[in-house]
């Protein structure tokens, strides 16, 4: 593990992550989360679906940024492209399209792109790198957050496994913190819930960090999260963007 991972996963990283609850706010509003037990089930389900997918995409993006030749082989892309040198914009767009195909909900695509754009904007100033510039140029609307996180991980010197861990971790810590604020839960109890999920985090990051062709990366759906994300947009009084 690289020490830069601590900076990346820190909620104080100025990248706008605190504005998103990952469906937790809507789940609280509809009564699906009322206390620590519901929250634990929500987080476990989120981690093994959306968290796993995000972690796998982040690992692939980190790989693409650090070893574009090898990553292009994973993508099964054009053999006429040089294996050495930086990944071209087309490769980033292809990986971003893989994220799109795994995100059926437009509300979640928008939230992912907004967070990806904000992360990339900050990271280009913190860890300037040509790969981040290429990604920003390839997907001007904002890459999906896991893609941005993977590219940023590479720029910060982290491995694909680190990137997967950061993505898996942020997929549950954001909603957990939101639940503390929304329900007035005891932060210590909520952190105990998170500590209980550490074995799952480890196993998700290990699964997600395994190299695979992009088309075969995990694509676990969470239909209830999709519904929550779309309902949330129609809720008038909201503390969080998503």
């Amino acid at each position: 593990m690289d020490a830069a991972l601590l900076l990346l996963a820190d909620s104080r990283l100025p990248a706008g992550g605190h504005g998103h609850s990952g469906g937790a706010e809507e789940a609280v509003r509809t009564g699906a989360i009322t206390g620590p037990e519901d929250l634990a089930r929500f987080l476990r389900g989120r981690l093994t679906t959306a968290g796993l997918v995000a972690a796998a995409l982040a690992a692939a993006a980190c790989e693409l940024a650090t070893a574009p030749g090898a990553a292009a082989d994973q993508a099964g892309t054009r053999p006429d492209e040089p294996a050495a040198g930086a990944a071209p914009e087309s490769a980033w767009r292809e990986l971003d399209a893989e994220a799109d195909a795994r995100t059926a909900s437009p509300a979640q695509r928008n939230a992912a792109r907004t967070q990806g754009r904000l992360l990339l904007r900050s990271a280009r100033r913190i860890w300037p790198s040509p790969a981040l510039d290429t990604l920003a140029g390839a997907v001007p609307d904002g890459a999906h957050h896991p893609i941005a996180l993977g590219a940023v991980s590479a720029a910060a010197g982290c491995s694909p496994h680190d990137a997967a861990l950061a993505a898996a971790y942020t997929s549950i810590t954001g909603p957990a913190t939101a639940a503390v604020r929304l329900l007035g839960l005891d932060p210590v109890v909520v952190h105990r819930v998170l500590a209980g999920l550490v074995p799952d985090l480890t196993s998700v990051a290990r699964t997600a960090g395994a190299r695979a062709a992009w088309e075969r990366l995990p694509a676990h759906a969470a239909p209830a999260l999709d519904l929550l994300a779309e309902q949330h947009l129609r809720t008038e009084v909201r503390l969080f963007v998503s």
Partner: protein
Amino acid sequence: MGTELVGGRTVLGTLRSDPPLTLRQTGHGTVHLVSTAAGPLGGDRLELAVDVAPHTTLEIASVASTLVLPGNGESLTVVEARVGAGATLRYAPEPTVLAAGCAHRMVVRLVLEEGASVSWREEIVFGRYGERPGTCHSRFDATIGGVPLLRQEFVVGDPAVDGSPAVYGDARCVGSVLLAGPAFGHPGPGNGGRPGNPRGHASVIAEGCAVLPLAGPGTLVSALAPDAATLRARLTWGLGRS
């Protein structure tokens, strides 16, 4: 099975099958899947290959739901469908019911050429009345013109995840209908010039059902329900609004 275009009309060409799954032509361009033995049982491997030739139309249905039973090891069904330019495939079998103790894998690979249209329904019921389901892992991959349109996996059978308010909540059935084709796509802003959805990003939602415009040329109607009849009603409601 496959279709051919003869004199401007769809003709069913190859139609070969072996029990436990028998194919029966039941109308012009319509085929029913008939279960001629129980199952699939653990250890069974069923494969269905569908080739819809350019400018032909095929409709596939089934006469009854599929009850997946336990047996010696994992059961597997693989459906591979290719849909040519200007062709239409409607795939609407009855639900897959996961009996107690089953261990099932479902793989669908749907390859659409540009200009192909498809309506693809998938319904999974978590056990018969009052029954705890076995395990199921389904993977669905749809590409259109070589670009990924929808990739999604459903995992059923881990009680710690199934009941998560992020995944299925208290639902006992999950289902979706993918609609894809030229009617659902045109190059637009916000999609980086990729073929996108003419409905923009406007989803439609109701209790347990969401109509989700995809990033590519398609819409996903996704539903959760307490029972199979409600699931079908919700999907039908969503189809009327897609």
